[in-house]
């Protein structure tokens, strides 16, 4: 047996060098362990998620008719479907006399966005949302900027299996306090949105929705109890515009907006995309502003957004800044307190102003907040409380 003296000799310098290498190795291993390769953000892994029709999620609002026919009651289109047929929204299919959603657990867009992108300016300004969207839409806007997603069936798109629980877990893991449904029409995939909202409520996460509000009262109220904020696209103010450019009616939209305003606790903002020559006449804009003022009150924020050539209106020029400024000043004159200009930055119309003293309380550059002096929703100068969700 070799004695300790027989072991290879090591001098002080080599010993220190070896020690240094060991320490370096340990640091490297430590750094690697902090490097989250798996990034398992979605909670329960390795479980095949049933999506679309396979998820067997039935629609809550429909009636069965003779011969396996079905009448859908989610939106005012009242689609009447024979067996195997799908609703106008492309997401609800009659399977053997039962109505199922094709849009369950299969969002085509998952991303993190600034909340101002919805656009919500009075709901936790400067915060981020986990934004989710599924393919399909019950509206046919000729200028849709997400037509690739909205004008497709959910299963025709590349989708990312995600259960409601996983969606909420992902938001929590990313430390995001709000989940947003936008880009396509939430009404088209209301069932998944509803279930995500229920889970979010349980977990203390807020839910906000951007919608065209072409929905019936009953499903709206059922969904709205889990929703903290709505941005409704009031896209024009004539039935003609709604019918020819969007393919739907205006009256049910106005009804839905009033429902959100008066029959739910959700925060409400409105957005109007101003398309030059189509819905920008002074008469139309003024009647819209007047309706908002009279029916909803002066505290509901109204956003006038710049149109950019898109989809089937690609030959229409973008909205001149002056048109938006004119609409904004008209709305302010009519008595609305919070009127914004969107898709045009830098512009004073991006900022939030105190309705009493007129000082800018939140200064923005597009979606970016440059300065926020609002304290618990109050103007720092005159202490006026601004309407909104600030905490």
């Amino acid at each position, binding site marked *: 047996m070799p004695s300790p003296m027989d072991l290879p000799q090591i001098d002080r310098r080599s010993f220190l060098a070896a020690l240094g290498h060991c320490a370096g190795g340990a640091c490297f291993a430590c750094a690697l362990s902090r490097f989250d390769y798996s*990034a398992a953000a979605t909670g329960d892994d390795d479980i095949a998620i049933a999506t679309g029709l396979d998820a067997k999620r039935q629609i809550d609002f429909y009636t069965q008719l003779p011969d396996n026919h079905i009448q859908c009651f989610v939106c005012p289109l009242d689609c009447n479907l024979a067996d195997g047929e*799908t609703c106008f929204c492309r997401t609800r299919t009659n399977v053997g006399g039962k109505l199922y959603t094709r849009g369950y657990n299969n969002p085509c867009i998952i991303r993190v966005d600034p909340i101002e992108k919805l656009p919500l300016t009075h709901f936790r300004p400067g915060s981020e949302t986990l934004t989710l969207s599924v393919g399909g839409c019950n509206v046919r806007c000729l200028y849709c900027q997400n037509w690739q997603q909205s004008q497709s069936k959910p299963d025709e798109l590349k989708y990312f299996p995600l259960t409601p629980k996983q969606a909420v877990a992902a938001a929590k893991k990313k430390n995001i306090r709000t989940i947003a449904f936008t880009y396509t029409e939430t009404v088209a995939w209301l069932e998944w949105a509803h279930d995500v909202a229920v889970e979010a409520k349980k977990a203390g996460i807020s839910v906000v929705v951007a919608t065209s509000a072409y929905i019936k009262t009953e499903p709206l109220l059922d969904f709205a109890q889990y929703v903290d904020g709505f941005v409704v696209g009031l896209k024009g103010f004539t039935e003609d515009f709604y*019918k020819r450019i969007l393919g739907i009616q205006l009256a049910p939209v106005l009804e839905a907006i009033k429902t959100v305003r008066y029959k739910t606790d959700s925060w409400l903002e409105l957005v109007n995309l101003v398309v030059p020559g189509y819905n920008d006449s002074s008469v139309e804009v003024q009647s819209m502003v007047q309706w908002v003022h009279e029916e909803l009150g002066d505290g509901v924020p109204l956003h006038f957004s710049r149109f950019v050539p898109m989809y089937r209106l690609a030959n229409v020029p973008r909205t001149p800044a002056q048109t938006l400024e004119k609409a904004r000043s008209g709305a302010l004159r009519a008595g609305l307190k919070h009127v914004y200009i969107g898709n045009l930055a830098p512009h004073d119309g991006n900022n939030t102003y105190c309705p009493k003293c007129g000082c800018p309380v939140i200064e923005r550059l597009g979606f970016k907040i440059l300065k926020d002096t609002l304290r618990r929703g109050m103007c720092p100068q005159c202490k006026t409380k601004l309407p909104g969700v600030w905490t």
Partner: protein
Amino acid sequence: MQRTRFLRHFGFLSVILAACLVPAAFAAEVDVAQAIEDREKRAAASAEFVYRLGLARAQARKLIPVLEEAAAIHIQSYEAEAALLPRLIDAYTDFLQEDRLDKGFSPPVERRAGRLHQQEIYGPEGRTRQLMALEKKASAILKPDQRDFAEGFKPGKPYVKPKKKRTRDPLVAKRKELEELNRDKRPRLGRLGKLLLHPGAYPGICAKARSDAPEVLQRAARICANGTDECPIIRRDAMRLQVRQIRSEINNWNLINGLHFELDQIRQITEVYDRAVADVKLATGRTDPCNLLDQDAVNELEGIVSQILTPGQMEVIDIYKPCLIPPKNLKSPVRVGQAGDSSRMIHLLERARNVPQDRLADLAEQVIEGETRHYGKLADDDRLRRKRLLVNVARRARAMNDTEFELNKEDLATLIEREDRSLTLRGEIDDIVQYRGRAGLVARFIVNDEFMSQLKYRGQQLADGIEQKQANLAEGPQAENCDKGCAIKE
């Protein structure tokens, strides 16, 4: 009419005509004259360099084949530029018309201008790379002291071995860093290449070699001095100048469009500027058409204009880089409710998820190479570090399933996003400069005659108002509706 009387009459008319035209043509003529002078200076410097370099006959003989290649590149370069310039003028003029209206660019006009702009940049760059290779060859023929001489050579001055200057002034250091960063963004010819491969050097080298100059060298020297028959050099210079002027106007329009001035702001800014110019004219009696304001007046105006601009506009000026096609944030910012706005880095990660594992390193190299154009060259160590980071993050992206990737792609993209050092440096320089009471970015971009005249034009456009034509909704495309039933059959 008598001959003398006619001449006197003609002379008088000429004077009047000249008096009318001079203000407009003044700047252009000065620039053309400057271009001629610069060109002649360069040729003379090359000739002097060869004369003082002390080339041996053998060296000169070895250099001639290299020069022949360089001459061919110079000829090709001239011909290519002469062909490109008229097309550039056309394309940029169309682009300018649309830019002026601020209604967005029509795709064909934008595409054409973009394509020719690429040619304007990449064509000369390719030729510079070829010349750089020749510069290496030429350098190998010279002795070390001759190479040192090239580094320290200044025309008309005795040779002094260059010393590295040290400075403690942060402004000088930052300016130098920015200059180097910008220089590294494009391939550039070294001092030796500029002097030795220039056609002005050819006669001297041929004389040293005691041989007749080959035809190609003679032709290059002729073209360098006079241009070609199809495009004399004066015309080339004038076209270059015209392109530069249009580009400068486009830069201004891009900024004006991006800042979304309100009419009231325009009135205030142009008023204070006009008042300042009128004061100078009154005080000095000068009436020349160029920018009249001295540095102090510009500084003062910068302060006033900055007060008129909103914080958002100041933010845009801080990040604005003069450009032909405005960057995404100025031209078409991410819109409310728009889904497709993924960053470049996210696209890169998506690509990295789809390439074979063994191609990741190549992809990282490509990315770094592409970044050089925007951010400048990286030192070897930094380059290695960046490559490692890109490959590591790409591996992470690949290890995720689709849903995980969608959830985490923004975070991953943030990890590999590269800081635009030149923008940071520019901001820091601007801060120091303004602290020292000199002109900053607002002065540089806005407080000048050209910008102001364009701003007045925009003010006029806004004051005239917009023509509101209502579309007939019954005409044109109609949205699909449920009138004929809603159900979609499979």
